[in-house]
């Protein structure tokens, strides 16, 4: 295993200087943080890569696996949680990585509390491209996606809640998503187990039906069990009746596949999406307008969008992104993995404000720089 090195290079220092000059406040969160918070925010896929330890009272702690969570936490707990803020960071993060050092340096930026979302998105991308230039003069490939487009599509299709949740969840997992779409196209095959009762309830007044099932559960002495209330259970039980009433029409499935198949530059993507939506009679205007506004702001900031790629399928491997997602790749292929990765993560701040008991909506967008890969791309490592 290669030995860990946390020493920062001269280029890393230049990157930090560039970010400071651009108005980002350097954040210095602690190395140790509550493991419980991190597990809940990132899920088990990343939780297994945490370095864990315990304090004298037995509380579980972890070494920070990234900067985003502690930077956002410090902001939300600070006095200016309701105001817009721009943070940068540079330093070591810790994750188990097979065959590689578990300790490595990361830099990054976070724009928090900006309600002009598209402007904030465009700023992050523009500065990410500029900062990558600190390390390399070689070709850089910008790859973009927008989770919001897919979410707006499944809302516009008028799918049952069960299917909306499933598609949104499987979006990042192409194998599962393909499987879902195949099943959506099939006419409803076998009914759920309580088919008789569900059929009797189907089409009846939803409120009355929910009350009936809630009553049945409370007769059995069941109130809140395992974190789900009797009303929760009743509601989903009835949703299954909706699921039993048929599949998605073949032409609608074709629309989903068209949208997901989109792979072009961001400006053409915008035009093609409008065309697909209008032909299918689906209202996706708000999401497409956001893409258009972001594109215009990127062009205004001097980003060459004709060389950028946009794919509706493109998603990053954490599930708290809600809108823009992007990566910058080494066009020369010297560094095999992304040099920069980021996106809009309003869902993460939502989960954190809920945990902290704050009644706040904090829009958030940011990105992380893999400084060791950037050095490789620049031929300096």
């Amino acid at each position: 295993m290669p030995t860990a090195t946390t020493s920062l290079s001269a280029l890393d220092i230049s990157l930090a200087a560039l970010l400071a000059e651009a108005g980002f406040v350097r954040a210095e969160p602690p190395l140790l943080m509550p493991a419980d918070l991190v597990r809940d925010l990132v899920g088990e896929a990343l939780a297994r890569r945490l370095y864990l330890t315990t304090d004298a009272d037995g509380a579980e702690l972890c070494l920070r696996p990234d900067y985003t969570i502690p930077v956002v936490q410090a902001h939300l707990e600070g006095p200016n949680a309701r105001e817009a803020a721009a943070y940068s960071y540079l330093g070591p993060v810790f994750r188990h990585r097979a065959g590689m050092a578990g300790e490595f340096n990361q830099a990054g930026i976070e724009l928090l509390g900006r309600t002009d979302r598209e402007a904030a998105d465009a700023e992050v991308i523009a500065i990410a491209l500029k900062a990558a230039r600190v390390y390399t003069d070689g070709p850089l490939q910008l790859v973009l996606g927008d989770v919001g487009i897919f979410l707006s599509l499944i809302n516009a299709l008028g799918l049952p809640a069960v299917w909306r949740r499933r598609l949104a969840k499987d979006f990042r997992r192409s194998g599962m998503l393909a499987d879902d779409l195949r099943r959506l196209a099939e006419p409803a095959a076998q009914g759920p187990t309580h088919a008789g009762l569900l059929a009797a309830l189907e089409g009846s007044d939803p409120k009355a039906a929910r009350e009936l099932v809630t009553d049945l559960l409370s007769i059995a002495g069941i109130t809140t069990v395992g974190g789900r209330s009797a009303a929760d259970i009743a509601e989903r039980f009835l949703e299954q009746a909706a699921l039993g009433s048929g599949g998605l029409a073949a032409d609608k499935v074709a629309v989903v596949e068209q949208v997901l198949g989109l792979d072009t530059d961001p400006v053409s993507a915008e035009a093609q999406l409008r065309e697909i939506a209008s032909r299918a009679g689906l209202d996706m205007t708000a999401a497409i307008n956001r893409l258009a506004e972001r594109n215009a702001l990127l062009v205004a900031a001097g980003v060459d969008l004709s060389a950028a790629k946009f794919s509706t399928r493109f998603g990053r491997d954490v599930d708290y992104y809600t809108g823009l997602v992007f990566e910058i790749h080494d066009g020369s292929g010297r560094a095999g993995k992304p040099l920069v990765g980021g996106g809009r993560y309003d869902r993460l701040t939502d989960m954190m404000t809920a945990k902290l008991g704050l009644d706040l909506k904090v829009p958030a967008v940011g990105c992380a720089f893999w400084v060791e890969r950037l050095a490789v791309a620049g031929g300096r490592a």
Partner: protein
Amino acid sequence: MTLVFAIPSKGRILEAAQGFLDRSGLKPVQGRGVRDYRGTIPGLDHVEVAFLSASDIARELVAGNVHLGLTGLDLMHEATPEPEDRLVSLTPLGFSRADVVVAVPQAWIDVRTMADLDDVASQYRARHRTRMRVATKYLNLTRSFFDRHGIADYRIVESAGATEGAPAAGAAELIVDITTTGATLAANALKVLDDGVIMKSEAHLVASRTAQWSDRALASAADMLDRIASEARARKVKEVRTRFRAADDGVLAEARERFGVETPFGGPTSSGMLTLHCPPKAIFALSRFLREKGAETVSVMELDYVFGKDNPLYERLAASLARS
């Protein structure tokens, strides 16, 4: 260097393991007292016995501190995310059978399958802005099983004991736990999902691929595995002896065909003495058949060991160690 053989020192697996070792001629002698956690096996000079808990055995096998051990399939998978890289199961042992299962509150009448659970997990996260909690001690098994079913909106709460009480105590929404009869789950108002059996576990004889296998350790292993295989082979047959003049190749061929008998020492001797190995369930039919053919007396015996030319368990070990 001696071979270290780890056997369970406590728990459900202990009694069955002792029976297995007695039958296989590997009965250990503990050191000076019950508090001594090291022992020996009479007649096997280069074998050291370590008395450990079944989960410690799995961990020590992974670490390579123990060469051979008796432990559960579930614990093998829990001790390392890649059991096949570090361990090799030489044979299942048929005892300590139990299932590792996903169990949810019985009140969840809308949840019967993992697909339902997947949906509930997404819904739970959307509603509570936090992930559904799964109490378990099986981190690796839970993660890989949930991953296979595409479930991402959950988190594990580690639980060392009395996992089945976690949902009622409000410490988790559901559990992954081991169960034999399901009675404990039912008593805690939990139900197993229709497709929620993660693993059918039982005790296995396991070898470490990471331990130092000296020639001497391999020779000791060959000796031990020969005893174990011979005992297992002996349990699958009974010995049938008889003597009669009409015992010829034709009768033997028919007996092989109809009852699955073997003739370990060849056909009848010149005086007509015949020794057969017969599966236990065919014993009475075989004895009737032999008397119909002219035998006056047929005796049937249990066997302690049947040693053969080959040593199949050792061959499995050697093949696994040769693989890089």
